[in-house]
């Protein structure tokens, strides 16, 4: 009971800190999700368009995913010429992971676009450019969205690792809480991180509803689960 009051008063006193860590955490998560998605879109579409590249690109994605995160954070400053505390290292590292997760999903999403629709749009005079924006991209949308939701959650979780190189995000609450053996701080960090993930997910789902009104299957929970389970299979 007393414990509960204690973490509440701690949160109250340190609200500004937690809020700024949360905002920075969210901002740090957004960029890799966005960049990873855009790059995966290009690569995944290419993999699907030129089957020759498909196995290479997908294998490349899988290899990226096996890079352990800790050494990556250490090596990146040398590769990029950045200072070790530079947040750009985190962004690049997380973009790589986002990319690794998304490439396959994107390739599958484009492969699942009904060939009927593609053929028909070609036959009535859509150029490749028009076809991509007006046919392939929207029809791949539901699967792309499902993939984005997974990546959003995993990126938000991974950002905390950046705290070990001094990034001011919710990971700080974990490392600091651990050092001070202050469990509540860790729990507050987890709570805030969960909150960000929830907000991102809701935004993604709402975006999906607005942009894909024909698709009635996007629900808050099932879509993320579905893609996770197919990934394992």
């Amino acid at each position: 009971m007393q414990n509960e009051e204690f973490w509440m008063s701690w949160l109250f006193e340190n609200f500004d800190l937690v809020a700024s860590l949360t905002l920075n955490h969210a901002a740090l998560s957004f960029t890799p999700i966005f960049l990873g998605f855009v790059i995966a879109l290009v690569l995944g579409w290419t993999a699907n368009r030129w089957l020759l590249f498909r196995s290479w690109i997908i294998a490349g994605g899988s290899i990226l995913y096996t890079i352990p995160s800790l050494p990556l954070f250490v090596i990146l400053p040398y590769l990029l010429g950045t200072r070790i505390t530079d947040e750009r290292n985190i962004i690049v590292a997380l973009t790589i992971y986002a990319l690794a997760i998304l490439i396959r999903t994107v390739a599958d999403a484009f492969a699942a676009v009904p060939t009927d629709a593609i053929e028909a749009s070609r036959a009535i005079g859509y150029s490749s450019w028009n076809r991509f924006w007006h046919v392939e991209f929207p029809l791949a949308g539901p699967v792309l969205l499902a993939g984005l939701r997974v990546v959003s959650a995993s990126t938000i979780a991974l950002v905390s690792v950046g705290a070990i190189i001094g990034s001011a995000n919710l990971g700080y609450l974990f490392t600091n809480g651990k050092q001070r053996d202050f469990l509540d701080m860790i729990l507050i960090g987890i709570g805030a991180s969960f909150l960000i993930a929830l907000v991102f997910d809701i935004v993604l789902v709402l975006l999906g509803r607005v942009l894909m009104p024909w698709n009635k299957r996007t629900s808050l929970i099932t879509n993320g689960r579905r893609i996770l389970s197919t990934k394992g299979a």
Partner: protein
Amino acid sequence: MAFLLELTLYLLPTSRFARLARKVGADMIEFQNVTKRFPDGSFAVKDFSLVVPSRKVTVFVGSSGAGKTTLLRMINRMVNPTSGKVLIDGEDVAELDPVALRRKIGYVLQATGLLPHRRIIDNVSSVPRLNGVPKKKAREDALTLLDTVGLDRSLADRYPDQLSGGQQQRVGVARALASDPNIMLMDEPFGAVDPIVRLELQEEINRLQRELHKTMVFVTHNIDEAFAIADQVVILKSGGEIAQVGTPEEILSKPVDDFVSTFIGADKGKRTLHLKQGEDGVTVIVDDEGRPAGILGDAE
């Protein structure tokens, strides 16, 4: 008189002349020794030559694999011939930009080919939108087109999967008409609907053609359908080999060989077809029970 016309044409800038010619409406399609050979060495079409007359309905009929779709798709460059040429008003389509060419030709596909993520109204207005027609205007035109093909305007905001098969086919026809093309290609557009709806849709095509006068190339493997809508029937054997070309009347009265006789079912005595003069100067084909099997020629 002829001299005056020639002089006028001479004085007109060529581009305007070309446009005029298009308006006046040649839109004749000509296949010249067209062959399509696939990498595996098989021939879909072998040395095919045919003139598709302007502003008439030409129907390719033949059994599955005869090369009908391949022939159709060579007109809008969805398939490029291995050798030979396809000409539209004397112009080799191989020299035209495929995207621009396809936007000028209406195409109704076998499996409707509607875009599942777009409302009916947006499906119908796709090509005008690509051509830069403002959204509002394109949508208004699309509503008018729904009237034209006999669809209720209340369907405009639905998605394709909320329509019946027959309704979807009509949307496909409306979409093909949207850019007011002079040439319409229709690949078994009514293959997936029940016989009654099919008859209705054939009637609809005849009605549209009486109003719009397109150069129409229609593919089917149903000979009754061919007779119901064609000005010119082209009966194909495999490899796009022409068994017979002619008006429905000619083919019915003088099948050139056993293949054609068998194909039109005349040999089976299953049905004897007669021609009957109907109202509005329409010649109706009726079977021996007096049921109409089709309509001959133009209304005028």
